[in-house]
């Protein structure tokens, strides 16, 4: 037996594993969605299966804009986790009033600025153990 890392940092996204599978399915098709509470109408970010405002656990999916603006960012150059490489641009992107934590891909750190427009760029990561594709909601400069 060789040394191995017992590590999968990515969410299990399929319907076998999460109540929020619709989010990932839509993301794989290029759209950003979130949950809107069926009880009180509050739209959440990130999507959630229980509403802290009214206590309901039913929701509808609503589509969010594919465009956002950079609210804050930092460039991590070193000290990244195994499997992740620097420089890596971590950002908070404002999308339809929501603060969305993400990374910016294909971004030149020197040219980046707060207030800059960015577009959704779904990022494909490692498939799950059953071979299902997995996606994360990343952004790139518009």
């Amino acid at each position, binding site marked *: 037996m060789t040394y191995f890392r017992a590590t999968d940092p990515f969410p299990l996204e399929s319907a076998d594993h999460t109540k929020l599978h619709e989010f990932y399915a839509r993301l794989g098709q290029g759209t950003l969605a979130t949950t809107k509470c069926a009880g009180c109408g509050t739209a959440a970010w990130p999507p959630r299966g229980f509403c802290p405002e009214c206590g309901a656990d039913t929701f509808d999916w609503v589509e969010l804009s594919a465009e956002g603006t950079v609210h804050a960012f*930092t460039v*991590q*150059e070193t000290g990244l986790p195994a*499997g992740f490489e620097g420089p890596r641009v*971590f950002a*908070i992107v404002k999308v339809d009033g929501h603060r969305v934590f993400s990374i910016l891909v294909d971004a030149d750190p020197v040219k980046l600025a707060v207030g800059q427009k960015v577009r959704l760029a779904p990022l494909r990561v490692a498939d799950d153990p059953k071979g299902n594709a997995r996606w994360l909601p990343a952004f790139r400069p518009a």
Partner: protein
Amino acid sequence: MRKVALVGAGVSKFGVRKATYRDLIWEAGKACFDSVPGVKPKDVEGLVVGSVMPERTAFQSHISSLAAEALGIRPSALSARTEHMCASGTVGIRYAYAFIAAGLADLVMVLGVEKLNQPTGDEAILNMGTGVDREWEAAFGLTAPPCFALAAQRHMAEYGTTEEQLALVGVKNHTHAAKNPNAHFNKGATLDQVLCSRMISTPLRLFMCSPITDGAAAVILAGEERARALTDKPVWIRGTGQALDGFQLTSLHEDYAHWPAMKRAAQAAYKMAGIGPHDVDLAEVHDCFAIAELIAYEELGFCHKGEAGPFVAEGRSDYGGDIVVNPRGGLIGCGHPLGATGVAQAAEVFVQLRGEAGARQVDDAAIGLTHNNSGMGEHVVMLYGREAR
């Protein structure tokens, strides 16, 4: 409620240790028992162990029983593990305090332990990702540095805090650590060294960050009568407070230069102790990153909001200033073995308030504060006194 005091404390050497998880428990346990000759392991009624990720780093759960057996403790009143990321040790002290204050136990050890270093360094960092939200944050490769980097940027933009002022926190804490034989780093650091160290996450450089460290620490708490019987110099728990604002980065107070949960935790502790920030002689605050220490000065009330940069630059948080912050060397100088950190801070306050801190002694220290964050929106504060009230 009964009064509760620390009667013993001990710390292992912190660092990249050639030691197992259990070796570290033995070291801290021995140092702690050596500090209070009247207590043998069989006398201890309860054990609380603060430890964050032994499942990942040592492939081990069932921690409190393992530690009890390693030290020869047979708990009769309390046995538990606490996990609250970087505040796990202090959260354990709060549990032990509450049990003793309520009369459910009389003599309890709190031990914090973490074996973070792994055969491969990037795996140790990957494990740290378990401390943020896996699905919405860690999946992107997020660990703590970018979070606190965003706070530093806000503080710089809002209050004109400079890179040099951030660096001075690193200089101070590395300098203090040079007088602490148990610290991870013992060489000190100059302003140039800090400012020229490699960039971790803009604007935080290596020497403005706490390292990945192995270590353990232990304290023993007792009810009033037992405490007075065991030692002439008990160190009393005078106040405690804890408050949370949010877990995910995007659910916190939007302006990261302000940490309202920290202010709430501090105010609860001050109120309970019947004292204010200007009564505090030394503070062991959670400088996981230099910016966290600067914001701590403000939210704990040592200086006004926005004035933390000048506060450190003028030496007001150092020996000879208003208050000595992180005489032990802080997380930047001592390292940050998560679960052990809060307990090691309490151990520092223990020796300081007893006048036993040697080269690190703060003159006539009567009140000590410890603080941990588990992220910008989660804080716990303890106040200790030389006098019971």
